[in-house]
Each structure stands twice: as structure tokens, then as C-alpha cells.
């Protein structure tokens, strides 16, 4: 028993030393630290490409992937800890916030030749108007999903979520920004930026909705809708497409008054230590074939020209994953709002929910 323990321990220590020294050892290409959403790279399952392994093979750069769950989490770690991330994946409004607080650096686009393949619409977005700091990774819109066996008044807009006849069967975003965006649209406010007065109006709308709701959820929406336990829910349209493949009774709708076009982007923080490697990584992720592999995996849309054609035909043909241009013209993209307005919204949302 003791001998076995000794052997196991010494083996572990020896192997860990080997791993650590291999990490800091001679490889000139070095390593980069990537900070991304969880489950956001194609990982080689179901015949997809393992994009990280491919990048390491092609460039010899070792990639350390760590993951976060919300933009705010990303912001906190970037602004407080002294860890040096080389590539981060903030969403639209967070890109703007990081730029305004000087936490990210200007990119050398000459080192990202694939940037030429980024569709025009997704360059110079309002959150990075001159296109100096970010390269888009994925985009999609919010939408509505309903169960056709349970819903009588077929919804074509967000007001479906205020349908009295579905009392107790409706779901709502458990995420202040998304929930308020829907409520503000109902009040005739465009929710890219807003004031406290706008929040108050939307709060009333949300309070009116609350008695009709079953609950406030995020990823639980998948379970609720796929098992036909709820009648209607707002969610991200690409995910709605996934739900529909798992339950034939589900129908996805792009609300006619427009919705939130969100873009997750790649940026390089000021504190990055391997900027060359980071630029190579961003360029690699913007390659049509790689972008197609990633988007196939997460079922959001690719901002890279030529990627859509490489994606599974059913996915690429879906209006939910790739809403048509005319629809996108009706959409808005979140902008950064002042800290105190943002926290006011969060406080109000907590009050609504409780």
C-alpha cells in the first residue's frame, strides 16, 4: 500500500515537472492565453475540426484556453487581476466598454489578412466605429420560439410574450439586458442605449408581464421548450434552431419589429504578452473554413465571407441562424451604457423578479 502510494506520487511529480518544463521550454513560437466563452470552439466531435489542435499544429504556438460565462466576468478579470490574456472574446457593448477604459489595444490589421474576408456589415460596427480594436467572431439575433400544439394566437412579434391566454406557460430571459431590450421595444424605445427614464417605462412593462410568466430562465429554456413544458420563450435564434431539431412542434420566429443583433468579437488586451501570436490566432479564426467549423459547432452565424457556403446546408439555409439582410436592417446592437444606468437596470430587474 505505502509502496504503491510512493510510486504513484513520484510518478505524478515527475510527470508534472515534465509538463511544466515542456511548457516553459525552448519552443520559440511560445504560447498564447485565450479567454473565451465556454463551448465556443469546435472541438473535433461529430466530425468537426478541432480548431485549437489545428492552430497549434500549423503554427507551433501552444494555446491555453480558459473560459468565462458572462461579459461582466470577463471585464472583472481583465480589469483587476494581473493575468495577461492575449486574445479575449467580448460581445459588442463590452468591446466598447473595454475600448473606453483602455483595456484593449489597437490591432495591426496588416497581420490579419483574412480581415478582408469579413463581411462589410460587420466591420466598423457602432461599438468600434473606426474598426481599430476588434475582429468579429460570430453573430446572431434574438428571436421567439413557440410550441405550435400549445399556442393559438400565432405570434409575429414580441407582444406574444404578453399573451394572456398563455398565462403560466411563458418564459422570459433571466438576464437584465436582454429582458429590458424586449420590454423597451414594446414601449417604442430602441434599446441600444437608454436612460433611467427608459428603464422605468420598461420596468412597468415587465411588471405587467410577470403574472403571466412561468419563470425567468437562461439555458433552462432548452429543457423547457424541448420537452414541451412551456409554450413560448425568447432566446438566441441559433439556439432556437437547435431546439427545433430536437422537437418538431417548435417554431422559431424573428419578431417583425426587429431584435438584438449581437456580435462576439476578438480583441487583444493591453496586457497581452504575445501580440504576434494573438494576431496569428485571430487571423486563423477568421479563415472561412475554420470559421465555418466553429459556427457549425455553436450554430451562430459567421461574419466571414465564404464560410456560410461551407456550413451544413440546413443550418445555412435557416433564417434563424442567418437572418436575411432586410431583417438585419431592422435590428439594433447593444452599446455601452454608463455604469450607474447599468446597475440601476440590474437593481430594477431584481425587483421585478422578486
Amino acid at each position, binding site marked *: 500500500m505505502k509502496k504503491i502510494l510512493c510510486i504513484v506520487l513520484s510518478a505524478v511529480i515527475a510527470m508534472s515537472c515534465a509538463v511544466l518544463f515542456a511548457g516553459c521550454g525552448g519552443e520559440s513560437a511560445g504560447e498564447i492565453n485565450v479567454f473565451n466563452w*465556454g463551448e*465556443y470552439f469546435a472541438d*473535433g*466531435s461529430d466530425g468537426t475540426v478541432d480548431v485549437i489542435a489545428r492552430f497549434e499544429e500549423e503554427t507551433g504556438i501552444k494555446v491555453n484556453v480558459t473560459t468565462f*460565462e458572462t461579459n461582466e466576468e470577463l471585464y472583472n478579470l481583465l480589469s483587476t487581476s494581473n*493575468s*495577461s490574456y492575449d486574445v479575449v472574446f467580448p460581445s459588442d457593448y463590452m468591446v466598447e466598454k473595454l475600448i473606453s477604459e483602455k483595456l484593449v489595444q489597437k490591432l495591426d490589421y496588416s497581420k490579419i489578412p483574412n480581415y478582408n474576408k469579413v463581411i462589410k456589415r460587420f466591420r466598423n460596427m457602432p461599438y468600434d466605429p473606426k474598426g481599430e480594436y476588434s475582429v468579429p467572431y460570430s453573430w446572431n439575433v434574438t428571436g421567439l420560439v413557440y410550441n405550435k400544439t400549445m399556442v393559438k394566437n400565432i405570434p409575429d412579434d414580441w407582444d406574444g410574450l404578453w399573451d394572456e391566454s398563455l398565462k403560466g406557460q411563458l418564459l422570459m430571459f433571466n438576464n437584465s439586458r436582454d429582458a429590458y431590450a424586449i420590454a423597451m421595444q414594446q414601449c417604442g424605445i430602441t434599446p441600444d442605449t437608454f436612460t433611467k427614464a427608459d428603464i422605468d417605462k420598461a420596468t412597468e412593462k415587465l411588471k405587467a408581464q410577470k403574472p403571466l410568466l412561468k419563470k425567468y430562465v437562461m439555458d433552462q429554456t432548452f429543457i423547457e421548450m424541448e420537452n414541451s413544458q412551456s409554450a413560448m420563450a425568447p432566446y438566441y435564434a441559433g439556439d432556437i434552431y437547435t431546439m427545433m431539431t*430536437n422537437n418538431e412542434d417548435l417554431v422559431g420566429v424573428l419578431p417583425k419589429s426587429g431584435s438584438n443583433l449581437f456580435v462576439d468579437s476578438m480583441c487583444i488586451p493591453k496586457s497581452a504578452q504575445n501580440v504576434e501570436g494573438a494576431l496569428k490566432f485571430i487571423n486563423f479564426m477568421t479563415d472561412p473554413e475554420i470559421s465555418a467549423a466553429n459556427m457549425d459547432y455553436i450554430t451562430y452565424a459567421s461574419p466571414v465571407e465564404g464560410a456560410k457556403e461551407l456550413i451544413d446546408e440546413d443550418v445555412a439555409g435557416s433564417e434563424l441562424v442567418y437572418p436575411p439582410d432586410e431583417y438585419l436592417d431592422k435590428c439594433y446592437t447593444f452599446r455601452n451604457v454608463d455604469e450607474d444606468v447599468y446597475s440601476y437596470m440590474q437593481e430594477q430587474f431584481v425587483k421585478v423578479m422578486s
Partner: protein
Amino acid sequence: MKKLSKLYTALIIFFMYMPIIVLVIFSFNDGKTTVWKGFTLKWYADLFRDSQIMSALWNTLLVAVLASAIATVIGTMAAIGINNFSGKKRLLLQNMSNISILSPDVVTGVSLMLMFTIAGVAFHFQMGFWTVLLAHITFCTPFVVLSVLPRIRHMDYSLYEAALDLGCNQWQAFRKVVVHELMPGIFTGFLMSFTYSLDDFVITYFTRGASFQTLSIQIYTMTHQRISPKINALSALMFVVIIVLMVIINVKDRKAEKRMGE
């Protein structure tokens, strides 16, 4: 009455194990959801192909083994040291060790992050494997102290003196008598440290830095998309490994008891 007590036991066991059984069943589900779509082993195959999960698993095990082994050594030494004090001093030391068990993980995590960040700026290092390991040793050590101390108190000190009288030098007497007597406590301390280190989320979250990720964080951040069934497969495997380990330990104990009986 007897039936009632049986029913009660059955219910408790049902509620304890049902979630795990459900998880194991769905690790064989051909589909990413809670809708049953037929039997498959593909999640197990995908699991071993997924380099991110595998490296997170390796990191988790590495930290758990090293942290619990080091904490066991430090904790045992500390317990023996604390026992040698008497009166108020001992009480003080013992409570100082216990307080860090009682303080919330968030407090420990944030304070460690602050300390490592400040130290990192001063001495030019980044948070990563070493800071996570140090943090885990820090929160594991008090558990070892806690489980070894009562054993020492019940140990007969004259055994140690007898060993010296019979020709052992101090090191031999310590190793063969003291450590042998304390072994059950040391082992419990080791196991406790190991499990705490294995499933720690909060403290790792704050001290991990930019290049190091463990399994608990990997799984937590998956909920943005949705938790992959690969995790079900991984959890099922871990559960099976734990059961096998428990059985082996129990069988060994039984055998040892029998030998003692003879």
C-alpha cells in the same frame, strides 16, 4: 414500525442516488438534450478526443494529488507541533487553524487573488498552476490538522518512549510508532483534502490566472451554450472510479481486520 424505517431508508437512498443514476443514463443518450433519442457511446468517445476537457481533467487531478499530499505532510507536522504546546497557546493555534476552515471560500479566494496580484506585480510572476496549487495547499492543510489532532490526543505517549528504550532512534520511533498510530487520521485528512481540492470552484476561480483551467470552471462556463453530454460521460466515469476505489479500500480493511482477529 420496521416497515416504516425500511421505507425511510429506501427514500433517503433514492434521493441521494437518483440524480447520479439519471446522469449516468443520459450519458448514453443519443442527443444533446433531456429527450431520449436512443443508446450511444459517442459521448465517451468524444470525451477522450476533447483536448480541452482532457487537459482540464489532468490539471484538476494534478493539483488535487499534489495539494493533498503536500497538505498532508504540512498538516501532520502542524498537528504534532500544536499538540506539544499547552494551555492558551495551543488553543490559540488550534483556533487559528480552524478559522480558515470556517471562513467562506469567497473571502479566501478574493484575498488570495489580491495577494497574488500584488506579489505578482512586485516579483514579476503571473497567476497560474503554482498559485492554484499554493491556494489549494492553503485551504487543505487545516482539514488535515483537524483530522490528525484528536488521534494524537488519544495516542499513548509512553509507546514512543518505549520504542526509544527498545533501541529505536528518534526518527525510527517517530516513523514506526507515531506515524503508524496516526495513520487513520492522516489518511482521512488526505482523503478530505483530495475531495475538497477536486471539487473546489470558488478559490480556483480567483487564483487560476490566464493559462490554467480546472474541470469545475470548465463545466461552469459551459452553461452559456449548454452543458455538453460529454460531462455526463465524464461524471459517470468518475463515479464508477470512486465506487471501485471504495470497494477496494473496504475489501482491504476487511482482510486486515480478519488478520487482526487471527
